[in-house]
C-alpha cells in the first residue's frame, strides 16, 4: 500500500514539475523545477528496485547537467522570452502555437489511450534482488557492454573539445 502511495506522489511531482518547466517564462525557475522533477524520477527508480540508477540520476542529472544549465542561464542573463517578431506573429504566430498545443495533447492522449488498453502486467517479486544488485550491473557493464562503455569515453572527450571550441571567443 505504501508503495502505491509513493508511486502516485512521485508521479504527481514529476508531472506537475515538468508542466511548470514548460509553462515558466523565467529559465531560472525552469531549471529549478526540472531538478525537482528529476528528484521525483529518482524516487520512482528506487520503487523500481534500481538504487544505482536513482543515485546516478541525482548525481549526474540533478548534480552535474543541471548545474551546467544553471551556469549558462546565469551567464547569459536572459530573464524572459522576447515576444514574437511582428511579421511572424501576424503570419502564423498564435495559430502555430495553437497547432503545437493540439498536437502535443493529441500525442499524450494517444500514448495514454494505447497503454490503457494493455492487460495489467504486475511486476514479479522474485526479480527484485537480481535487478537491484550493483554487482550484476557492474559485471554486465564491463563484460557484455565493455565496448559501448569505452566508446562513451571517446564521446565525452569529443563533447568536451567541441564545447571548448564552440564557446571560445573568436579573435
Amino acid at each position, binding site marked *: 500500500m505504501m508503495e502505491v502511495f509513493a508511486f502516485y506522489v512521485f508521479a504527481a511531482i514529476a508531472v506537475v514539475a515538468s508542466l511548470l518547466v514548460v509553462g515558466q517564462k523565467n529559465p531560472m525557475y525552469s531549471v529549478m523545477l526540472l531538478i525537482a522533477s528529476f528528484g521525483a524520477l529518482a524516487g520512482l527508480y528506487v520503487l523500481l528496485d534500481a538504487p544505482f*540508477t536513482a543515485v546516478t540520476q541525482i548525481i549526474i542529472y540533478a548534480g552535474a*547537467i543541471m548545474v551546467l544549465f544553471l551556469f549558462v542561464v546565469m551567464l547569459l542573463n536572459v530573464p524572459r522570452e522576447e515576444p514574437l517578431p511582428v511579421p511572424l506573429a501576424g503570419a502564423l504566430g498564435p495559430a502555430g502555437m495553437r497547432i503545437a498545443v493540439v498536437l502535443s495533447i493529441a*500525442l499524450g492522449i494517444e500514448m495514454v489511450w494505447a*497503454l490503457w488498453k494493455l492487460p495489467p502486467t504486475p511486476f514479479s517479486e522474485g526479480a527484485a534482488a537480481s535487478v537491484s544488485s550493483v554487482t550484476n550491473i557492474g559485471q554486465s557493464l564491463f563484460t557484455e557492454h565493455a565496448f559501448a562503455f569505452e566508446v562513451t569515453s571517446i564521446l565525452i572527450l569529443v563533447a568536451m573539445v567541441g564545447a571548448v571550441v564552440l564557446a571560445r571567443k573568436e579573435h
Partner: protein
Amino acid sequence: MVTLNSYLILSGILFAIGTAGVFLRRNLITMLLSIEIMLNAVNLTFVAVGRFRGIVDGQIITFFVMTVAAAEAAVGLAIVIALFRHHETLSPDAFTALKW
C-alpha cells in the same frame, strides 16, 4: 498494486510534456530542458521494462543515455553561448542564417 502499465503511462505523459515544450517555447535553453524531460521519460521506460523482465540491461542503457545527455547538454549550451554572442537573443526565430 502498481503495474508496468502505470509506469509506461507516466512515461508517455512526461514525453508528451517534453514534446510540447520543444514545440511551444521560443527560448533555446528551455527547449534544451524540454529535451532533457523527453530523455528522462524514455529512461523511465527502460528501467521499468528492465525491472519487469528481471534484467539489468534497462539500467545499463539508462546509464548510456545519461552520458549522451551530458555530452548533448555540453555541446548544446556551447552552441547557445556562441549564438547569443552573435545575436544577443535566445529566440530560435532569430537564427535563420547558417553562416554570417
